[in-house]
Each structure stands twice: as structure tokens, then as C-alpha cells.
């Protein structure tokens, strides 16, 4: 099925790995216009195919790999791709966005996406070459760690073709093969880490997917696109965050800022500051260990670090890994973190969920709930624990199920730091309450980015009062929707940090910066209006927000800031609409009681997340019921009335199945009340 739009290859393949049947997945221009690409496109595909009865580990579950229309157009930081599926970890849909070059090569192979169903009887390696799928036996690769597996793929491709073949790769490690619930998919050194996509790939018996080809992405307005990209690269390189802080320090540079703000999760989120933070912060990483800065294809930011482990250059840790495997488990040995980060990538495991599950286990033992031999600060045998998890041996077999599962078995839900089963990143939300709301309502579970990343304003880059709930729900909706669409377009979310004009970042004491920070909590009603009527924003924003214009030039679709924003809303609400099918309601948009009921600073009630208050405003701003269900009116307004499930929803509302009130108390509704 071809397309009239630029930016797309016009073809999505459906691959049944049980029958080895390959067909074209019907994906129309109307769907391209409404859902753009990436996670939004994947949500539409999952929504059309999954029923409430579908199980994550089943032939009916789909592994959907999608690109966005900016990938391959030369737009900055746009070599991304997305993996979505019904998550075995959270039991709702998940999406994981990844850098590297696979997205670029999938388009070179002539495809916008892959929809994989079924389960192969034997280990498989799928190679996509110029739109053709080759099913290769991968029995000899099964069991390999992700580095050797990727090397083996290059060797096999070279042997078959008589010369090296440029290609993009996806592989799983032993963790995915053994269905560790938070196992990842690895692409070069980059990781689609969250939600257990690797476990689904492993269950389907797919060890690897490679893509190669010589197709070109057609751009609707190539001259305009080229000129815009040139300016855009220049802007990103000149911005204090994307041109200075991220290239110099990577995400690791946030450790010190979070420490100063009391936002660095320490000892499984008991505290927000870690006394030894200087031993494990980004500055020490840069000064003592970083060999070279690296980046994904077409990225001027180059946020990745390269360090040495056992004399070998490997990817350095991100902030989340430093925070959670540093202060999170009371470990001040940075060299150990570098090594663990590498080991976890090799085994194919999400470092956030692994670290947070470990911290839960340490606290469970400390509290006498689970005699597992683990203790905060005792880290000599941790490498063995990783292996035990990946191969599901001993206590590793239970740790492989994540903190939610463990808390259900051993107790201690209040300190199992996850939301909807997905462990939180290293940011302590009691000192950034807007982020707390984001973690709780995020469609994929406890994710800072899918949660709207309010902490950027609450102390990282700006100085908006981190303890006030005012204005945060409306701002969260706005950020979630914009980030949703940046991701769907195929671009890295880190480019969104440049939305804030440089003077607001580089001059924190200037009157205008202070005025902006003071204004955020009181402009909620204005933001609500914009959230309700995004069409009012029928213009493009020059210099700082190039995404809508880039989409217009790449695809030829009518596009402006308002349409872009509305497409983000559509996507976010669609994901929630699908999750409603799996039982997600207000009670599930929760945080562990430690974060909502226990002030981080004793006696200071403001230092806990006033979640229920913010949720009430948030649902209202979204046009969802107070039980977190998108209403038929909202679905229709966002152009989702054409969904097969729309009618069912209307009928369910008519039957009174979805009430405009909470169906139950949130896990975190204790002290503040529901």
C-alpha cells in the first residue's frame, strides 16, 4: 500500500512467526494523518488487534516495531524507532523508544513498521532486506549475550553476501530468552528497555531482527526540509542544554542537581540525598572514566558516554542507572556501576527495573519480610545476582518478576517503588510533586518521560516551586501530549529540552525567568483552555519548536503547532482507551504509599505527593471521567470515533458501566484521602 505522503515508505509488514506467512499490514493515509507513526501508530495497531482476553505471552500478542516520518529525513536526532506490545510486566500496553540506527535501516529496507504475531517453534533470526523477509535459524545464537549475538549477525550477513552488510539490529539476551519480565531489546549499544519488550520477543522465540536495503525516504518539500534542518542543528548546538550540558556530561550530569534539590532517590526512595553522591555523579564519570562522547545517527547532541570495562570500550551509564545502582542501594563504587551497566546490557535487562527490584529486595530483607541474603551497601556478589535473574536461578527466579510481584508475595507494597508495575526512574517525586503525578498517570506505568517530565521545571532546568500542585496537572497534560508526538514523529525526546528559549535556562536569576517560574502555578486555567482547544494554536512556533514545521515539510500534511499538539492528545488518550480494556482505572494511577503518605522531610507535609488532588484536575483537563476513562465525547473530539471499540465504549457508558467518579481508592490515597 503506497502513500501520498512523504516521510513514509508506505509499507508495513505483518509477520506470523508461527506460520512464516508474511502479508502487508493495511495502514492507510488517513491512519498516517491521524496517528503519524512511532508509538501512536503502534497503539492504533495494538488497539485494533488486542482484546481484553489477550495475554502478554500468547501467539495473539503482537510485537509492533514502528518508525516515524522524520526518521531518514536528516532531521536532528531522528534515527529512533519504537517497540510496543502488551507488557508482561505491567499487563497493559507498553512502548519503548530507542536510538541507534535500526529505525533508519528499517526504512532503508523499505518499511515503516513490522507487526509480529505468533510464536516460532525454533529460535529465529528475521532478516528484512528491501521489503523481503528471510527466516533464518538462530539455534546457534540462542543463549548468546547481546554483544556476541550482534557480532554473530554481522559475521553471518558478511559470509552470506561475501562482504560486510550495513544493517540495523535488534537482539535479545538470555534475560529475554528466559522471559525476565523487564528484559530489554538491544540495538547496537542502545536499549529499548522498558516494559519487558525483550521478554515478548523471547517468548516468540525471536533472537534477532536485522534490516538492510537501499531505499530512500522521499521528502515532500526537500529544499525547505534541508534549510530547516540546518537551522535546527544550529539551534540545538547553541542551546545550553542540548549544546552544552548533555554533550559534556550526558544525562549523568543530573545526579548533582538532583542531590542539591533533594530529588536523588536514596536507599530505595527513603531519602532524597546521598552523602556519597560525589563518588557516583556525572562530573566524576566525565573526569575519570569517559573516553569519548557518542551519539545516535543524525544527532548533534551526542549524549552517550563511552567508558572502559575490563579494558574494553563500552557504553557508560545513564542518570537512572547511576542513581538507582548508586545511592539507591547505598553503593558508592562508580567502577562497579560501569561494570554492572555493561553486564545488564549484555544480559538484556532494563537497568531501572533491575535496580529498583533489587532495592526492594534489600529493604524487604531489612524489614524481615524476605530472607534473601541481600543488604544495602553489600554489593560484592551483585554480578552473580544479575546472572541469576537472567537465567532465573535461585532468588533470581523471583527477582525476575519485578517489585510489584514480589510485594504481592512478601508484602511491603508501600516501598515497592513502581506505578502500574513499572519501576520508577531515579527522580524522587516527593520533592517534585508534578513529576509524582506524571509517574502515577503515565500510560505505560512509572515513567518520567511518558509522565510529562515536570521535574525539568521543578528544579532541573527551571525553578518552579517543586512542592506546589498548582498548575502541574494542566502542564503535565501539555508536556505529555507534545512529547508523545515528538516520539511518534521519530525524534528523540531530548530535543524537547530546547523548547525553552536559551535565556530562560542560562539566566536563572533574570527577572523574566523568575516571572516565568512564578507564573507556571497560576496559569493552569489558561493551559486548560489550550488543552481543551488545541486548534486555537493554528500557527508554527519559530526557532524553539521546529517539529510541526518539519512534519509538514517531510510529509506534506497540513501541520501546525495546534495540529501537532492535538495529535499528541489523540495518541495519549488512545493509549488510555486501550488500557481501559485491561482494567486500568483511577485506582491504578497510583504511587507507593511511601511517596504519597510519608513526608520526605519529617514534619514537612509539603514533601509528599498530593496525588489525589492533582489527579482530579488532571482527568478533568484530559476529558476523562474521574475514574480515568476517556469519555465518548473526548474520543470523538480527538477523531477517534472511527475506532471499532468506540461503539462499545458508547454502549458501556449508556449502560452506566463507567461512572464519572472513582471506582476505588488508589493505593496511594491513604493519608490525603481519595
Amino acid at each position, binding site marked *: 500500500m503506497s502513500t501520498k505522503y512523504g516521510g513514509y515508505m508506505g509499507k508495513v509488514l505483518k509477520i506470523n512467526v508461527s506460520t512464516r506467512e508474511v502479508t502487508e499490514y493495511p495502514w492507510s493515509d488517513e491512519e498516517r494523518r491521524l496517528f503519524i507513526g512511532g508509538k501512536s501508530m503502534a497503539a492504533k495497531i495494538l488497539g485494533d488487534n488486542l482484546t481484553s482476553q489477550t495475554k502478554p505471552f500468547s501467539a495473539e500478542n503482537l510485537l509492533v516495531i514502528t518508525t516515524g516520518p522524520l526518521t531518514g529525513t536528516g532531521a536532528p536526532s531522528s534515527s529512533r524507532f519504537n517497540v510496543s506490545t502488551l507488557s508482561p510486566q505491567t499487563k497493559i500496553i507498553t512502548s519503548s523508544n530507542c536510538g541507534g540506527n535500526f529505525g533508519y535501516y528499517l526504512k532503508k529496507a523499505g518499511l515503516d513498521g513490522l507487526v509480529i504475531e505468533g510464536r516460532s517453534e525454533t529460535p529465529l533470526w528475521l532478516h528484512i532486506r528491501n521489503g523481503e523477509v528471510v527466516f533464518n535459524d538462530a539455534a546457534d545464537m540462542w543463549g548468546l549475550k547481546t554483544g556476541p549475538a550482534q557480532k554473530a549477525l554481522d559475521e553471518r550477513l558478511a559470509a552470506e553476501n561475501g562482504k560486510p552488510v550495513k544493517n540495523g539490529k535488534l537482539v535479545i539476551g538470555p534475560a529475554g530468552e528466559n522471559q525476565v519480565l523487564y528484559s530489554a531489546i538491544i540495538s547496537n549499544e542502545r536499549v529499548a528497555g522498558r516494559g519487558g519488550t525483550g521478554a515478548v520477543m523471547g517468548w516468540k522465540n525471536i533472537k534477532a531482527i536485522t534490516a538492510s536495503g537501499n531505499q530512500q525516504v522521499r521528502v515532500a518539500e526537500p529544499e525547505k526540509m534541508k534549510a530547516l534542518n540546518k537551522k535546527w542543528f544550529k539551534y540545538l548546538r547553541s542551546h*545550553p*542544554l*542540548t549544546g*552544552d*550540558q*548533555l554533550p*559534556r*556530561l*550526558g*544525562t*549523568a*550530569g*543530573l545526579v*548533582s*542537581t538532583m542531590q*542539591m534539590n*533533594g530529588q536523588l532517590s536514596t536507599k530505595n526512595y527513603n531519602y532524597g*540525598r546521598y552523602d556519597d553522591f560525589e563518588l557516583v*555523579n556525572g*562530573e566524576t564519570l*566525565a*573526569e575519570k572514566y569517559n573516553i569519548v562522547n557518542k551519539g545516535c545517527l543524525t544527532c548533534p547532541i551526542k549524549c552517550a558516554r563511552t567508558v572502559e570495562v575490563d579494558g574494553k570500550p563500552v557504553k557508560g551509564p*545513564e*542518570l*537512572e542507572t547511576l542513581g538507582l545502582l548508586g545511592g539507591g542501594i547505598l553503593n558508592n563504587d562508580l567502577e562497579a556501576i560501569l561494570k554492572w551497566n555493561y553486564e545488564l546490557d549484555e544480559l538484556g535487562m532494563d537497568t531501572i527495573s533491575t535496580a529498583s527490584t533489587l532495592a526492594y529486595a534489600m529493604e524487604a530483607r531489612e524489614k524481615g519480610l524476605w530472607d534473601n541474603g541481600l543488604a544495602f551497601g553489600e554489593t560484592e556478589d551483585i554480578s552473580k545476582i544479575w546472572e541469576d535473574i537472567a537465567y532465573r536461578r535461585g532468588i533470581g527466579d523471583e527477582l525476575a518478576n519485578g517489585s510489584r510481584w514480589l510485594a504481592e508475595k512478601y508484602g511491603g507494597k508501600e516501598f515497592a517503588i513502581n506505578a502500574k508495575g513499572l519501576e520508577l526512574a531515579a527522580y524522587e517525586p516527593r520533592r517534585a510533586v508534578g513529576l509524582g503525578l506524571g509517574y502515577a498517570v503515565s500510560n505505560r506505568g512509572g515513567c518520567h518521560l511518558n509522565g510529562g*517530565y515536570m*521535574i*525539568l521545571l521543578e528544579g*532541573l*532546568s527551571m*525553578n518552579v516551586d517543586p512542592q506546589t500542585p498548582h498548575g502541574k496537572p494542566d502542564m503535565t497534560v501539555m508536556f505529555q501530549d507534545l512529547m508523545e508526538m515528538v516520539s511518534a514523529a521519530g525524534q528523540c*525526546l*531530548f530535543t524537547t*529540552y530546547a523548547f525553552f528559549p536559551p535565556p530562560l*535556562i*542560562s*539566566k*536563572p*536569576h533574570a527577572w523574566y525567568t523568575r516571572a516565568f517560574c512564578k507564573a507556571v502555578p497560576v496559569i493552569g486555567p489558561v493551559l486548560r483552555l489550550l488543552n481543551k482547544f488545541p486548534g486555537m494554536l493554528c500557527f508554527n512556533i519559530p526557532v524553539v519548536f521546529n517539529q510541526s514545521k518539519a512534519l509538514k515539510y517531510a510529509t506534506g500534511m497540513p501541520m501546525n503547532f495546534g495540529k501537532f499538539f492535538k495529535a499528541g492528545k489523540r495518541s495519549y488518550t488512545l493509549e488510555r482507551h486501550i488500557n481501559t480494556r485491561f482494567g486500568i482505572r483511577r485506582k491504578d494511577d497510583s504511587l507507593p504509599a511511601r511517596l504519597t503518605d510519608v513526608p520526605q522531610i519529617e514534619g514537612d507535609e509539603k514533601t509528599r505527593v498530593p496525588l489525589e488532588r492533582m489527579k482530579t484536575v488532571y482527568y478533568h483537563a484530559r476529558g476523562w471521567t474521574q475514574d480515568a476513562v476517556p469519555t465518548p465525547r473526548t474520543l470523538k473530539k480527538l477523531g477517534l470515533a472511527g475506532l471499532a471499540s468506540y461503539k462499545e465504549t458508547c454502549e458501556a457508558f449508556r449502560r452506566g458501566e463507567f461512572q464519572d467518579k472513582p471506582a476505588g481508592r488508589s493505593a496511594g490515597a491513604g493519608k490525603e484521602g481519595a
Partner: protein
Amino acid sequence: MVTIKLFGSLRLKTGFKEMQAYASSVSEACALLARATGHDKKEFKNCLFVINGKQGKYSSALAEGDELVLMSPSGGG
């Protein structure tokens, strides 16, 4: 005597990490840093200031034994 520490990309740019010095205010500390590193005072003035774990201002006073942290802007991850 106060302890002055610098974090963020400005630390990598200037190579300055930490020093003990006599300074009675944040502005005086910034002037000291500018002299010590050869960088413009404005660069330090545009940092965020944390005094003994609490946010400070350019005009804040410093007392004997205080720890002053300067942080250049940071972004996301």
C-alpha cells in the same frame, strides 16, 4: 573559611572543582572563582546557588564553615 564547590558543565569547562576560601557572600565567592579560573564572573553569577543544602541568592551572605555549591544549568535524561 567557606567551602566552594562547582558542579555541571561549567566545572568541566573551567576545570575547577572545589576550594576553601574566605568569602562573606555569594557574590564575593563568584569574584574569587572568576579570578581563580580566568573565566568571566558572569558565568558563575548565572549558576544556581545552594548554601548548606538550601537555595541561595547572588546576594546571600556566607558564614564561617558554610558550604556553597554552584551549579550550571542542567537538562533532562
